[in-house]
């Protein structure tokens, strides 16, 4: 069993390379054929964070309203956890942020979602650009089965048509940031699906961050993993927040408590309460929040 890379070392590496990648981004901007989503271009040198704001967001599956009038802001470079019982709408809401919700036939979203003051539902916005800037990691690890580890990480860049990027460099950076580099650096050509469950999920995370998004959405990223792999993912989230704004949906309240600075509780499609995690877990305002987290229902 190989030793895990020292998380502190990886954090330093992530910070170092992030400034380098800002310079790379500047080069990219010149090389890119189409205009990127404005906020990316206007980011100040260094690490300006990105905020997501939801305004009266509602989501529908046909006639059924799964999310009702949610107002919520996700602070920059912070981890926000979405908790709530099954079917409360937390996954649906998060999928509205990167506009994946509308891929479902008959599904639609209403209201406003802004990334740094840009309304991503505006008709002039290219939805694929939204998804490049707002990445998503799914519950079940889903590496592309026909691709090697290297190709998997590079897939995001290739699929979204990014040019002028040194793939090898970017892939190594992403794998380091995901804490996977030491484990796979000697077998980048091996199939992506030859890794263990926890490694596959970190591979998917590397794939997501390789395109350098501004926000990373995680839909129950550790629920399919064993406890050790789960803790590794959580450590990873702590490191990643230095660079990205992170929203994590979780049904595991202890995970929300360990990982998120802010927690939002949803019930039946509504946002009941949100605030600093330690307040929610020691003294929540709403009795419904209290009932849920103390296990009186759900």
């Amino acid at each position: 069993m190989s030793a895990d890379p020292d998380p502190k070392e990886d954090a330093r590496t992530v910070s170092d390379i992030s400034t380098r990648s800002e310079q790379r981004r500047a080069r990219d901007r010149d090389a890119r054929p189409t205009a990127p989503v404005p906020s990316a271009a206007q980011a100040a040198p260094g690490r300006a964070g990105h905020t997501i704001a939801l305004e009266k967001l509602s989501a529908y599956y046909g006639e059924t309203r799964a999310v009702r009038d949610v107002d919520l802001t996700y602070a920059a470079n912070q981890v926000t956890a979405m908790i709530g019982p099954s079917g409360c709408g937390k996954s649906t809401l998060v999928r509205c942020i990167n506009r994946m919700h509308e891929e479902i036939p008959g599904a639609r979203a209403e209201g406003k979602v802004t990334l740094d003051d840009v309304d991503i539902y505006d008709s002039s916005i290219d939805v694929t650009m939204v998804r490049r800037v707002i990445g998503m990691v799914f519950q079940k690890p889903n590496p592309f089965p026909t691709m090697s580890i290297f190709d998997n990480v590079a897939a995001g860049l290739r699929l979204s048509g990014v040019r002028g990027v040194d793939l090898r460099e970017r892939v190594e950076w992403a794998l380091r940031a995901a804490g996977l580099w030491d484990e796979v650096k000697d077998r980048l050509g091996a199939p992506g699906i030859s890794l263990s469950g926890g490694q596959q999920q970190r591979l998917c995370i590397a794939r997501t961050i390789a395109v350098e998004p501004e926000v990373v959405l995680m839909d129950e990223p550790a629920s399919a993993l064993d406890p050790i792999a789960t803790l590794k993912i959580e450590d990873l989230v702590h490191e990643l927040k230095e660079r990205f704004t992170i929203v994590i949906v979780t049904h595991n309240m202890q995970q929300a408590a360990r990982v998120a600075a802010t927690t939002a509780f949803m019930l039946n499609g509504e946002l009941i309460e949100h605030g600093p995690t330690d307040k929610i877990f020691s003294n929540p305002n709403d009795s419904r929040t209290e009932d849920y987290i103390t296990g009186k229902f759900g």
Partner: protein
Amino acid sequence: MADHHNTRQHFRDELRRLEEGTLGGLDIIREQMDRTLEALEHQDVELAEMIMLDDDRVDGRYLEINQGILSLLALQAPVASDLRLVAALLHVIKHVERMGDQCVNIAKLIPLSGHEPPVREDIKGLVLRMGRAARSEVLQSRAAFATRDVELAADLSRQDREVNVLNREVFRLAIHAGDDPDTREWAMHQTMIARAIERIGDNAVDIGEQVVFVVSGLFREFPTSTAPAI
């Protein structure tokens, strides 16, 4: 939202058991105080001996509750109001143990005065009054915690002020106890006893503060004459 109170039944039972155990500790203190007051009134040295031996029960209860809380924290990860209750119980049982120790301190002082001590009735009267007031504080703190009554808890600081006033009076009288060395020695013991009773009162006030914490999540010290409100 079905099954409102059947989830985590084991946890709730355990939590209730710990709370009852803690409040039961206060009941033991009440018994100890009854005995202490009687021993003080009649200079009963044998009763004082019993008080000292019976403190084992208090210590035993303290260890039991402590262990139970540790277990609960490790196994059940309580949050929100459950967490506040658990934290409060930890404090309360500590105060119970302290109260028990103070009763023992008082019991130790009784035999020192011998079988026929030179009693000053005024001082003795004050000490007994203090003891009864402290006993009432103990009962009130138990009631306040059991019913989560914040006002009842806040009222404890008022009662405790009286105890503090009586304490200072005992001290003043003891200073002017006279020239007889036996009397002076007895009077000094009385001040020490009074001090121990005052400590019991303080612990009861602290239990009241825990009641407020459990209910509101805020921790505020009650103003007493030893910690005056600003």
